[in-house]
């Protein structure tokens, strides 16, 4: 199942995404939190902490600047550009031009 969370900046969009993801994780679902925001802080709201959130963002910046190769599959993205958040949630940051084939 895919759930999109949208809204104006400051509306509580990221907090809403994070609490939905954490509660689904607590109930035993496999959950992936996708941070697609240009000003991303889903990591903080999921509870992975400042250092890990910054690390993921710097990886994404490296791709945007061409210093690092794009992941080619969804599994690669989850692996290379993701981190484990509490309650079993996998957090991944997405840049705008990533467009992997399923696999």
């Amino acid at each position: 199942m895919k759930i999109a969370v949208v809204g104006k900046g400051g509306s509580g969009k990221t907090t809403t995404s994070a609490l939905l993801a954490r509660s689904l994780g607590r109930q035993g679902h496999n959950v992936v939190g996708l941070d697609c925001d240009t000003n991303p802080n889903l990591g903080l709201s999921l509870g992975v902490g400042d250092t890990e959130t910054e690390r993921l963002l710097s990886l994404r910046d490296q791709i945007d600047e061409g210093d690092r190769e794009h992941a080619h599959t969804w599994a690669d993205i989850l692996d290379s550009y993701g981190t484990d958040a509490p309650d079993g949630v996998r957090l991944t940051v997405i840049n705008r031009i990533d467009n992997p084939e399923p696999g």
Partner: protein
Amino acid sequence: MLSSVPSENTVIVADLEAGIGTLTRLPDQAVDVTLIVTEPTPRSIDVAKRAALVAAERAQGRVLIVANKVADPEDEARIYEAFPEAEIVIVPADPVINDADRRGVSPIDIDSESPAVRVLSGLSQTIGLFSGETLPG
């Protein structure tokens, strides 16, 4: 991107960019559920109304309005007036959310029983996802 992500046995929660830019670029039927998050302020409601139109036009699944920071009956009335036809979840204003923002942590790790945390955590039931039952596709 989102439409090509495999989601069998997995729930993908995509925190899209602020505003409706990403939503307008998604292909039709890219997601199963769209949560439109708003504050009870005119500007936020305006963005949410536009998002609701786009989500309906593009068939982005079931649409729910999530009204955050609702402090009083006037706030609540403003939301119901703005979205007379919609499925609405009212989330009370809650200092735990602000506290979590300031500290850079998850509200659920401060107080999982606080009013807003309870309602937002309960969204999974509202959407129809119950314990251990991850819908395919």
